[in-house]
């Protein structure tokens, strides 16, 4: 697969790292992996743990799959990808349970559901299975970081408005009445919509400035 690719289609590692952070941000632009984004972004710490878990699974799977890309037969590549991703998800799940039992409880089934996170599968299929390890790893790092930025922003906003706290410590004044809806999935949709609008406006303005400059 990698060998049939045109040289012009190959992108450099640093370019891929930047792409994940902004231009192709998995949450704000590609809208991938929305299930955990909406479900466990009710507090900043949940969002941070979830995005770190997802990012490490993506990075580890990308490195392993990219190194095995010439060995994995194309007919069963998806089976192999899912097997490798599932292994890293299980390992992450076990480690979080051993070292942070409370967080493990808060994230519930969504930790195991990282297996079917479409952001991970798409990065593996598009990048890791066709690119050398260095490019695949930087791409995974960029996408993982972009996912974390989106998720933690969402989690912080929801925690701020839904509980009046940030990472568990109180920041809103005492007379602040928490917005119940922000703790519920509906609040996730509202906040995500607001974030995407804000991001798109900012991105457009920056591009316009680039063109006029």
């Amino acid at each position, binding site marked *: 697969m990698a060998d049939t690719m045109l040289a012009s289609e190959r992108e450099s590692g640093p370019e891929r790292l930047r792409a994940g952070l902004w231009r192709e941000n998995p949450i704000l632009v590609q809208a991938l992996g929305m299930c955990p984004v909406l479900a466990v972004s009710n507090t900043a710490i949940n969002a941070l743990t979830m995005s770190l878990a997802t990012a490490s699974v993506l990075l580890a799977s990308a490195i392993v799959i990219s190194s095995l890309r010439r060995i994995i*037969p194309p007919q069963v590549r998806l089976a192999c990808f899912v097997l*490798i991703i*599932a292994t890293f998800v299980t390992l992450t799940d076990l480690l979080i349970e051993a070292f942070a039992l409370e967080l493990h409880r808060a994230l*519930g089934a969504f930790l195991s559901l990282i297996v079917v996170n479409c952001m991970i599968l798409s990065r593996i299929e598009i990048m890791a299975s066709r690119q050398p390890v260095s490019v695949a790893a930087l791409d995974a790092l960029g996408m993982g970081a972009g996912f974390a930025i989106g998720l933690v922003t969402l989690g912080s906003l929801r925690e701020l408005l839904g509980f009046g706290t940030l990472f568990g410590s109180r920041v809103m004044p005492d007379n602040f009445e928490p917005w119940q809806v922000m703790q519920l999935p509906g609040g996730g949709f509202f906040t995500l919509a607001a974030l995407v609008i804000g991001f798109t406006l900012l991105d457009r303005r920056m591009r316009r400035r680039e063109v006029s400059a």
Partner: protein
Amino acid sequence: MTDETKLTGLGSVLRIQAVLVAIALVAGLAIATVHEWTRPMVMAQRGGQLGEAALSVMPGAEHYRIYTRDADGIPRLSGDDDRPELFIGFDARGRAVGAAIVASGMGYADTIELVFGLHPELDRLTGMRVVAARETPGIGTVITDDAGWVESFTRIQLPFDGQGQLQELRVRDNARLEAGEVDAITGATVSVFAVTRIINRGLAEWLPILREEFDQLAGGRRG
């Protein structure tokens, strides 16, 4: 089809299988190793949390004795490797102030494990604490996070019929706690019913034993 293509076909099938088996073997080995390594840590944390939860549902309890059941259902003092099933709580002067029963059952997403406290008169609950659950964050997690609802379990009277036979706790809107009713929570129907069902099962299993043997268990003699 020539012999040669047949061979490559067979060869590629074998190769596919070899790769799949190799990946699965390495994956299995990695998971088993990490599981073995982390299990003692998880068990220790869970054990500590279970004891802490048990104390929190037995008002006035300072320390406890842990019981487990033999294969024939008779309670005995629990050893290190046993699964704790019943806690008897004692106050600072060594008087038995209640029992805490460990019970579990299916919730919405996964097993819910909880501890609930029983008054020594065996006629009312003294609290409930969920120890492990994987309910949907923000929805089913009210069973741990809704402080008012969790607190209501300290005031629930067990329902008995005219013959003193235990009836099941029921879920109701605007529950009458003194009539053995658990308050319903909109949006968390499954989790609330699951908690109620788990407590009902725990009560059905343990209340007959405790009625016979509470004094004995509290005295520390074997049942």
